Structures are given as C-alpha cells and as structure tokens.
C-alpha cells in the first residue's frame, strides 16, 4: 500500500506536468483550432531563464521570474503578430493539418535552437519556491515542489474551466473555435482573443516551468517531448475542455508511474506510448474527431 501511495504521489507530480500543458493546449486550440507544440519550450525558457538570472546575475527570485514571464509574453506576442496574424487572419485557405501542426512546430524548433545557442546543453533548475527536504506523512514521502506543481495544475484547470463556462470572454473563445468567421460577424475580435490566449498560455507554461523545474530540471530540448504528451493528453479532452485535459494529464502521469513501479522501470514509457497509440487508433472519436467534426477529414 505504501509503495502504491508513493507511486501515486510521483505519478500525480509528473502527471501535473502533462496536465498543465494539456490545459494550455486545449484552451488555445479552442480559440484557434491550432495545436501548440511550443508550450513545453515556453516552460523550458521559464525554468532556465529564471535559474540563470538568479544564479549568474544574482537577481532576486521574484524579479527574475517577472523578467522571464515578460520575455515569454513578448515572444508570444511577436509570434502572433509576425506569423499567426498573417497565416490565419489574412489567409483565405481553409483549415489544413499543415497549419494545425506546423506553425508551432516551427516556433518550437526556433526556440530550441536559440536556447541551445544561449543556454548550452547543461541541465538547469530554478530555485525552489518551497524548499527543504521532502515531508513525510506516515510512510508517504511528499516533495514540496511536487505539491506546488500539483496544486498549480489543479488551480489552473479549475480557473480555465470556470473562465470558459462562466465568463462572456470564455464564451467568445468557444465561439472563435466553432467558427472564426461567425465569431467575427457577431463582433468578436478573434485575432485579438487568439493573441491574448496564446500569450496567457505561454506565460502559464513558463510559470509552471519555474515551479516544476526543481523536480525534473530542464535542458534546452526538454520542451518537445513534454509538449507532445500534453497534446496527446489534450486529445483525450477532445481539445475543448481544459478541466478534463488536466484530469487526462494527471491520469497519464499516474499510469506511467504505476507501470514503472509494478511492470518495468525501463519500459514504462514504451508501454504507456503503445497504450495511448492503441486507444487513439481504436477510438479516434475520443479526440472529438467523429465524422461530423470539421477537422475529421482535413488534409495537408
């Protein structure tokens, strides 16, 4: 039982990583119909940027975090104004898988390349917000950074759920996802809304990188693989329910930890990816891609 509880705690911590990315991916997909593969790179910038500003420039932690978040917001704004505005607002082409995937793939590559040039290949971790050794409740070890990570994931999931469900702005986000043209006709500025959400999710991911990095550490190329799992976890929420995306992310993390604990520490990820692959292929409707979906038959 103790082993199970410790595995559960570890799984919830790693699941929180996927959960928050899944929530960010879902929210942005809801407004833009594009997948965000750069969300993990924003987390990497948050974690490594804060670590370097604190360690090398000796800035106070709070100041370093604010500087990094502003920088990430600026990158998000520049990408939207310089690329997405031209690609989506001025384009006459319909939804295409190329657009769904490749703009943020490109951004991810650029961020990864720049990070390698600036930060090198070392592993970095921001200073922990809640330091000290792991707390022990009965036989149950709890890492402080893990607790913060899970708490942040739950808070973000609940906040995004409430935002979409109870606010006018949230309804506007959903309207943009349903039909960008229709949203514009009823007076919703889909471009502005998309830009705000992109910046918000980038900042959230960066903040999450800062909180989580004491647990796993970040390298310049940490982003893509966690973004991928975030995208897959978001798929299990049909890309339109951030709250469910958080649950899916947590679930994936727990299954990964349990497979590691009870089946194989080496092949837990292999089994996990195989299981996710089989689920997507056998039940594509889980992704909200039934025959009636607008994106079900889109091509390159």
């Amino acid at each position: 039982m103790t082993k199970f509880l410790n595995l559960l705690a570890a799984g919830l911590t790693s699941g929180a990583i996927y959960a928050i990315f899944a929530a960010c991916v879902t929210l942005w997909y809801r407004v833009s119909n594009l997948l965000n593969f750069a969300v993990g790179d924003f987390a990497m910038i948050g974690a490594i940027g804060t670590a370097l500003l604190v360690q090398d420039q000796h800035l106070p932690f709070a100041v370093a975090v604010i500087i990094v978040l502003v920088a990430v917001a600026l990158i998000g704004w520049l990408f939207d104004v310089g690329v997405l505005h031209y690609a989506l607002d001025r384009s006459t082409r319909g939804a295409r898988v190329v657009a769904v995937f490749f703009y943020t793939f490109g951004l991810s590559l650029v961020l990864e390349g720049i990070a390698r040039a600036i930060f090198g290949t070392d592993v970095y971790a921001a200073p922990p917000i809640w330091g000290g050794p792991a707390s022990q409740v009965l036989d149950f070890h709890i890492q402080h950074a893990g607790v913060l990570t899970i708490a942040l994931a739950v808070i973000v999931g609940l906040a995004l759920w409430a935002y979409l469900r109870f606010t006018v702005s949230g309804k506007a986000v959903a309207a943009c996802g349903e039909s960008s043209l229709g949203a514009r006709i009823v007076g919703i500025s889909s471009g502005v809304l998309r830009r705000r959400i992109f910046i918000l999710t980038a900042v959230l991911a960066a903040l999450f990188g800062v909180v989580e990095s004491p647990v796993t550490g970040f390298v310049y190329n940490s982003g893509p693989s966690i973004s991928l799992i975030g995208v897959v976890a978001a798929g299990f929420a049909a890309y339109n329910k951030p709250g469910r995306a958080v649950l899916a992310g947590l679930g994936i993390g727990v299954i990964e930890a349990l497979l590691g604990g009870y089946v194989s520490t080496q092949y837990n990820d292999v089994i996990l990816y195989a299981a996710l692959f089989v689920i997507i292929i056998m039940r594509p409707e889980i992704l909200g891609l039934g025959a009636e979906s607008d994106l079900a038959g889109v091509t390159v």
Partner: protein
Amino acid sequence: MTAVRPETGTGTVRPQAAWGWWQRLDATSASMALGVAVVGIVALVALNGNYTGLVVTTGVGYAVVTVGMVAQIGYSHQLAFSQSVFMGLGAYGAALLETRYNQGVLVSMLAVIVGAVVVAYLIGAVVTRAPGLALALATLLLPLFLYELVTYSSYLGTFAGISGVLPLWSGETYAEGMVRTGVVAVIILAVVVWLVMRIMRSGVGLQLMALAADERLAEGMGVNLRKRRLGVFIFGSVLAALGGAIVASAQGIVTPDLVNESAEVTLLIMVFVPGRRNVIAAIVGAIVIEWLSTSTEFISTNLPTFEGALLILVLLIEPDGIVGLCQRGWEAVRRKRVERAVAAKEETA
C-alpha cells in the same frame, strides 16, 4: 523512320516496335530517374570517397525517404509522423541481421523490405482507418515509443547503438567502398524516383490526387479509400525503411538519434522547405540539409533555428516550398512578358 499520326493524319510519331519498351517505362519518369542516376554517380565518383562523399551518400539515403514522402504527403496528403520510425526499422533491421546474424547486404536489404511491408501493413491497416488529424496524432507517438525502446534495449545497443553495419558494396579501401556504396545508393534512388513518378502519372496517381482533393468526391467516383490510403502508407513506409538501411550502411553505425522526434521533424523539413510536390526538390532538400547539419559547427549548432524559421516562412509565403515560389515567380515573369508583347503589338497596330 517515321510514321503518320493516325488520329490527325499529320505529323510524325516514333514507331511502336523500336520505342515500345521506353514508352512502357514512361519516358518522363525514366528520363528523370536516368538523370538522377547519372548526376549522382558522376558526383560520387568525383568526390572519390572523401568526407563529402559520405555526407552525400547519407543524403541519398534520406532522399529515398523524402521521395516516398512526396508520394505520401505531397500528392496523397496523408500526414503521418511515422517515417523516422520506419527508417529506424530499416536501419536497425539491417544492422541486426548483418552484425548479430552474419547475413550479407542483399539478404538484409530484402529482409528489411519484406519486414517493412509486414509491419507497415499491420500498423497501416489500423492507423489508416483514423481520420486525418487522428492519424497524424497517433503516429506522433510512434517516434517517442521507438526512441524509448531502442535507448533501453541492450539487444539494440542502448544509447551507443549498433556499429559494424556493412557497406552496400565493399571495396579494397575505405574510399573505394564508400564510392561503391554511394553508387548503389544512387541506383536505388533512381529506381525509387522512377517508381514514384510512374505511379503518380498513372491511374492510381490520379485516384490518389482525387482522394487528396476531396475524399467524399473520390469515394463517389469509385475510389476505394481504405485500399488507397493503406497502399500509400505501406509504400511510403517501405521506402523509409529502405532509406534507413542505406543510411546505416553508409555510416556503418545506427544510433537512437535516427528515430527520435527531431529526426522526424528534420525529414518533414527536407520535404516541406524545398517543395513537397516535387521529387527533385525532395532529393536536393535531403542532401543539402544533411550537408548543412555536418558542414560547420555554427550551422550544425543553429540548424534547428534555421529549419524552424524556414518552415514558418515557407508556410506563410508559399506552402509548396521554394519550388512553388520559383514557379510563381516564373509565371509572373511570363505573364508580364506576354502583356508587354500584347502592348507592343497594339502600339504597332
């Protein structure tokens, strides 16, 4: 010897008996394949097995994969992220057969092709049932899956990979073996180019283009969607496996880097940036990007930045890549020339 065109009664046609075999090969496809073979062999012989020769031979291996992607993604619009996985299957398959089971190159190549057909059929029979975005998302997991598998499996050499992979055609010296391997790789590429061009210029190619334009319309026209989707998936996957085996033979080693998600992104960039609907562009893209990744430290370090920026630029400006951009430019020049000629005629009149 000439003959009169039967349908019009004018002009000349080549006699069927003498040129029949060439026409059956499809003159355009065969000319292009022949051109690729000649240029490739001349270049590799001139490089005489030096380091650039190795890079070009590796690039030819990647080109076999990207030419398959032109058929799969460019013409058929089937976006699957499984090419690096099948490259890995081909490379690791050849490496295992040659180093662990002492098989020759020919046997390992044939085994890789047969193995890739079987695996692609098994995966394809399931994944091609999924609609466009689900297919792409599901296959996104495959590179992650295989990368984890090869890095932890001692049978597959873990992080160090498997060394001692045989060249496609060995020589008395390393340089001679490298030239010979390059020549064999180029001949395989030429055959692949011919095959892809031949398919795309046939009735099957028309069906694939109809399927790419509108699946429902294609189905209405009698195209068997499931069969065609599966066929394209298997074809692209087998070429990826063959390309992987060539890359492993050229380098003499196979490592997990060949199958990770960055390798998949690099393959996509090799196709999208030069032009995803053009076979020659895909070959040039593969060789140039392979050369860039090993040319100087500055370029190899910053390659992801350049690749990402280029990908975004291409998607923004011209989704058909550099070739599409050139075609648009050429069309504009021609249109202007015609307009000028018309204006000059009107002035004269």
